[in-house]
């Protein structure tokens, strides 16, 4: 109980003065993170800000009762690892070590995360201070020894049109003993360019943090700006944002179901869903002129209104989409050969999912009730939210069924919102950010929890801007799902998670 008192608690989208965030001694801080994750809190993000003689560490935890909690600490010289006690901290710790160039003590898996140069360039430090990240993919991989073990390396250049990532399998015949995933090939230095922002290009950069989650990341950034300026977006814009967010979810879930069908060679659903995904993207284009929703969400509201005739046309179009989509997916459920393929493939246990801190559909398919729209509601979700779907299987089938249930819920939600758009303006002027504040925003993108944190300096500019894509939590879930599976099932498992490479690489 005592460790909960260390936290400063607040709600999603709030901003706090920096001096209100408790500064805790390092050992106490680490101990508290371990204990809190055992008490039902979950690490939403954990990052460092390097300075001249150390690193200030910030941790944001997501709890129950719609509460978020944060506290900070300071490390100098080295950082003791808590991954052994708290596996969900694993990638965050490696990221802190890499971005802040501080060694980790006792980390079981201490390797580069995305092979990036450190956030703070130290001119006195000669060779190490130069802008020379480690070459991507260079490093030791975990190896299983034995005469009958063979290693399969896939990527970073793939046969399909997907993003670059390297997968290293340790196989015994067709069975995978271990899969290690190395990413970082798409690192663009997003967090580095955000320091000193907001700049004119920042909104556009955030919309492309992960291209298929334009609305998700764009919305998180807009809410950060609103939190820092302490304004509230008008209700009509909240509603339109939710419509766009759900349309994005629909388009991607539909595309994923089609791609899952394609991966097992089931052509009808693949072709139909591919076409319906296009229709859903076109619905976004109807809203704002961009199929991916670029340019819609802006700090202070939305840039495009949806007049009644357009809303009516959209609702009609969504009705047609629902009919086609239902038919296409029914084909999938009715094919025994598809079900045989999905069932028991790529199972992640409930315990593993909790330990790894999975988020979004990947977590909900393992029977975990975890949805930002319900747990930490924002915007219009504060008053009305679509029902949370949960599946218990943890396999490809569960992830596919979950996508379909969420699609149905989103379709209904979008039509309801379009039918009851509140009146009023859609865009307020968003003033400058207040000084020395921290703002935290969680948004449930289609892949899961997107977490943005901004900390402003004495001039109201970003001292640090942390982006945590849901993929950052979930890539290890994919690696776990392959344990003991057939290597030929990897593409199917991969598709069932459909994680973002660039959202991870930033």
């Amino acid at each position, binding site marked *: 109980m005592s460790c909960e008192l260390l936290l400063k608690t607040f709600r999603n989208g709030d901003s706090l003065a920096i001096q209100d965030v408790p500064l805790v001694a390092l050992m106490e801080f680490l101990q508290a993170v371990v204990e809190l994750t055992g008490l039902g809190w979950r690490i939403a993000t954990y990052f460092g800000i390097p300075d001249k003689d150390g690193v200030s560490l910030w941790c944001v935890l997501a709890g129950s009762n719609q509460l978020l909690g944060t506290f900070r600490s300071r490390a100098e010289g080295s950082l003791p690892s808590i991954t052994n006690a708290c596996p969900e901290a694993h990638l965050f710790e490696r990221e802190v070590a890499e971005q802040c160039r501080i060694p980790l003590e006792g980390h079981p898996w201490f390797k580069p995360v995305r092979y990036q140069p450190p956030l703070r360039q130290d001119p006195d430090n000669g060779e190490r201070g130069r802008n020379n990240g480690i070459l991507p993919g260079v490093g030791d991989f975990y190896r299983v020894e034995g005469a009958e073990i*063979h*290693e*399969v*390396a*896939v990527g970073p250049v793939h*046969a*399909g049109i997907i993003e670059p990532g390297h997968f290293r399998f340790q196989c015994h015949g*067709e069975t995978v003993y271990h899969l290690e995933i190395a990413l970082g090939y798409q690192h663009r230095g997003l967090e580095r360019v955000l320091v000193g922002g907001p700049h004119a290009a920042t909104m556009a950069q955030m919309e492309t943090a992960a291209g298929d989650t334009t609305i998700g990341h764009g919305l998180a950034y807009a809410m950060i700006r609103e939190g820092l300026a302490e304004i509230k977006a008008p209700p009509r814009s909240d509603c339109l944002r939710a419509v766009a967010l759900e349309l994005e979810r629909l388009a991607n879930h539909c595309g994923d179901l089609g791609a899952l*069908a394609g*991966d*097992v*060679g*089931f*052509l*009808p659903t*693949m*072709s*139909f869903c591919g*076409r319906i995904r296009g229709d859903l993207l076109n619905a976004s284009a109807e809203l704002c002129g961009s199929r991916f929703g670029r340019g819609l969400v802006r700090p202070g509201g939305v840039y495009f209104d949806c007049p009644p005739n357009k809303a009516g046309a959209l609702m009609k179009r969504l009705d047609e989409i629902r009919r086609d989509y239902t038919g296409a997916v029914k084909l999938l459920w009715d*094919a025994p*050969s*598809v079900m*045989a*393929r999905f069932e028991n*493939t790529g199972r992640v246990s409930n315990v593993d999912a909790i330990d790894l801190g999975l988020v979004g559909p990947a977590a909900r398919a393992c029977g975990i009730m975890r949805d930002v729209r319900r747990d930490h509601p924002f915007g219009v979700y504060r008053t009305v939210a679509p029902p949370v779907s949960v599946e218990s299987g943890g396999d490809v089938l569960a992830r596919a069924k979950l996508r379909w249930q969420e699609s149905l819920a989103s379709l209904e939600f979008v039509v309801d919102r379009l039918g009851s758009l509140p009146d009023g303006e859609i865009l307020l002027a968003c003033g400058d950010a207040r000084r020395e504040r921290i703002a935290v925003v969680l948004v449930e993108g289609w892949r899961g929890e997107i977490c943005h944190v901004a900390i402003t300096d004495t001039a109201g500019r970003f001292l640090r801007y942390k982006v945590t894509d849901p993929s950052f939590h979930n890539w290890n879930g994919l690696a776990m799902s392959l344990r003991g599976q*057939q*290597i*030929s*099932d*990897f*593409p*199917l498992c991969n598709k069932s998670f459909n994680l973002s490479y660039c959202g991870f690489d930033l």
Partner: protein
Amino acid sequence: MADILIHCMLIILMPPLLFGVINRTKAAFAGRSGAPLLQPYYDLFRLLRKGSVFSRTATWVFRAGPVVALAATLAAALLIPLGNHRPPLSFNGDMILFVYLLALGRFFTATAALDTGSSFEGMGAAREVTFSCLAEPVICIALLVLSRLSGQLSLYGILAHSSITLWMTSGAALILLVAGLFLVLLSENCRIPFDDPTTHLELTMIHEVMVLDHSGPAFGMILYGAALKLFILGALFLNVLLPLRAASPLLDWLVFLMSMILLAVTVGIVESCMARYRLVRVPQILLAACVLSAFAMLLVVR
């Protein structure tokens, strides 16, 4: 003489058309218009005009793979009767040569894949050989059954013997045989549900992954060889299933052409309605095909 000419023309010109028909059928089921029927021919000509890239670490085996495989398949195509016509080559015991020619082609494809040293191709070769261990017996037993029924030892003899009357007398054995042969037809030609010829996912492939490193004319030979193999096994299958006899030889050729195209449509329909089996299930299904043909054998020799 005319029959021999037509036979040679058909085995050279017709096989890629089967792929075109299959693709069009799949497209129709998916609600697309699909690629032109003659697309496989365009692809072949495009590949033949291209240059080739060979790995510095690969040996002559890698280069010999496609050539030997195609030569063996072509030779096998000269042994198989099309429709009711005597094939250009026919002698007692040629059915054993037929089986061995197909095996020789496979052996060289798999060895060429191993020669590249790529882990994908090694995996593909291992899968291919494992599955063909179970597919080859089906063909062998089928030929034995037919040979027993007809009392002959040449492919032409045993296949031309199949007729409506034979179906009336030994229908049960033939049904089992046809079922087993159809499964093998699909698996040997890397069709769904055994393999997905259109996938780009190298980890799930069986046949395709073995030829990833081949390019240009060599790859063209492989594609043409694959079409030819579908053609040969299809002809074998049709000879057993549809022993139709028309009045004139010319009509016989027409019947054969039509039934081949129908077979391609059927394969396309199967591919459109099914997902792929999980790889561990493939040997089980092939084993079932073996058991089916073994039962057919049992019925015939009892």
